[in-house]
């Protein structure tokens, strides 16, 4: 099924009711460090409700799309696209970059005190992007107190098992909801994904995690599909991006996508709110 063939085609979506706006308001959790720490807003309270990566330990699980930033029901055979992002916050601490992602799969309760190879159970597979896979983030679900390198074995985009080696590091301290592999101390200003085996572009599943040292706490590893980045620059203004003028390339939003944001903020974000709207349109 085609997307939009022209400006007129896109504009008709409004007239024909093929549009939807999903509103959100999220309170960020505390961030352990200050500048540009990545935090997982899906774990923040507000609307949509917080999710806590709760499932059976080490077993792959998927999030229910309806419980993320709501983008409407399934649209197959039509294609749904993101056509706008609007962000507002009232604290200068929340200035920063916001990465909209589709959360595909997660592995909860990796034990931060164990140096054993922690084997994952993959009865559940990627619900979307099954062949190309996604990027991986490591989110603290209980406080981490020390740094620790770790090795991740995974199945890559070609179905080949790889190992990262001990190149990625969890940062301590990491507060609950912090992307522990993307602390300012480790990767200031960079994207929050784990480094993979050279040349790999995606992860279909995680086979095991082996910690080289014990950071403490608990960690959830999540496979995500990054969709779009927006910057929030000024507390007295709303940041908006619209397809196609300020956002020439727009991602398709697949049926069942669990949408939420990762945020990298200018200062500590605990208890601060970002609110906004995502606009969608679907083809016919």
């Amino acid at each position: 099924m085609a997307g939009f063939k022209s400006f007129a085609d896109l504009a008709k979506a409004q007239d024909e009711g093929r549009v939807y706006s999903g509103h959100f308001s999220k309170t960020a959790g505390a961030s352990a460090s200050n500048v540009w720490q990545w935090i997982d807003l899906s774990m923040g309270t507000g609307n949509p409700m917080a999710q806590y990566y709760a499932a059976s330990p080490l077993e792959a699980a998927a999030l229910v799309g309806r419980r993320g930033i709501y983008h409407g029901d399934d649209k197959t055979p039509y294609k749904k696209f993101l056509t706008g992002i609007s962000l507002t916050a009232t604290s200068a601490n929340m200035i920063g970059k916001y990465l909209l992602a589709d959360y595909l799969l997660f592995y909860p309760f990796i034990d931060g005190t164990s140096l054993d190879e922690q084997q994952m159970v993959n009865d559940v597979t990627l619900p979307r992007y099954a062949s190309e896979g996604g990027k991986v983030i490591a989110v603290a679900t209980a406080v981490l107190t020390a740094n620790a390198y770790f090795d991740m074995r995974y199945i890559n985009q070609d179905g080949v098992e790889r190992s990262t080696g001990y190149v990625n590091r969890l940062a301590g301290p990491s507060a609950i909801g912090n992307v522990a592999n993307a602390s300012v101390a480790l990767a200031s200003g960079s994207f929050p994904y784990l480094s993979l085996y050279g040349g790999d572009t995606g992860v279909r599943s995680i086979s095991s995690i082996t910690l080289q040292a014990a950071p403490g706490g608990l960690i959830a590893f999540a496979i995500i599909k990054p969709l779009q980045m927006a910057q929030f620059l000024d507390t007295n203004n709303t940041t908006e991006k619209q397809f196609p003028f300020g956002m020439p390339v727009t991602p398709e939003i697949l049926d069942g996508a669990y949408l939420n944001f990762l945020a990298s903020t200018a200062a500590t974000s605990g208890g601060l709110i970002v609110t906004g709207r995502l606009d969608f349109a679907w083809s016919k």
Partner: protein
Amino acid sequence: MGYTSQDDLINQITTNGKRTRLEMFKTTAPVHTAGGWHMLAGLGGYPNAATFPGATTGNADLVFQSCWETSGDGVNIIGPQHGGNPGGSATKHALNVGALVVAAAGAPWQLKLVDLQGYYRLSTTNVTGTSSRTLNNGGTFTADSGTDIITYTGDFTTYTKVQFSNSGGALPGGLSAATDYYLVRQSATTAKVAASLSDAIAGTTIDITSNGTGTNTMTVQMRSASGVGCEACFVVQTAPTGGGPNLTASDYTNTAGTSGRAFQGSPSNGAAADAYATRIIHSGNATGRYGPFLPRQGADTGIARINSFTWSGGTAYTGSGVIALCIVKPILDIVVPVTGMYSERDLVNQLMSMPKIDDGACLQWLMFGTGATTTASPVNTTLDIGWGG
């Protein structure tokens, strides 16, 4: 028709003066709890309204009440007057919007302009009960060619848009199937019929030449053809005493005329603390909340009418609450980031651009407060409208 070009837009506005500017204000009440959506229709200000929906002896529960620019909710004028119909093939479009909120707390705010198509009023056991409520969208009617009056069950407001159909015979003379008509209310169960909204406003009605045969059926229509773009929400007029049920079943007809469509996700309703007047009751920061609208099914592009719904599970409402199940068509959004800041959006130079304002639109503002918005806070909005043709 809107504009044929940017040049046409400039010419229509400057040479022909085909534009108007609306300024509206409302004063919030009571305190809005954080994270909730509200319909400001029932608030004081301009247009002024003591309550929404307004109380009227004819406003029976479960009957679709059509809302219009010139008649409001059938009791109060609840929407700004935007100048009537431009006539001919001309269509009105929003060109620019502004908003300002002054409140000690609650920022940032999101405001959404909607065209309130109508609502179904719910009270007594229709609020507290847990069985299915069947909504009245018309039904069978009889006609009297001597008086040009049709008789049906349910009190429909003047200007209600309807279509007629027949089985086993023929429609009354002067009426055609699959054609839009507008009721001119005569009593709680009767109306005359007008061929257009303009005729209805002028009181010009159709000469019914025969009573018809077989079974004649009348079905309400949204102002937006086939309900394209329409969404649904429950808005509180009077808070229930307690409880907070879930929407466990529903049946609506989509724009293709397919009934049996259901709102998704079993949305949960707010308990008493989140069920005050103006609140969209299934919005907020809690499990199962969807705001501002109930989630439509699949790729549905609108709601032609709602046929039934069931509130059960959770805790049934108690007390003497009054709630309106509203059908609205979203038009535009604007954000007010901080108190005292006038936000403005150019609706011409963007996609989607220049949203259409339908003839007779009953314009209403929905408001979302990130925090708890202080009571008695002024909300000021402006809307520039233009038309071509």
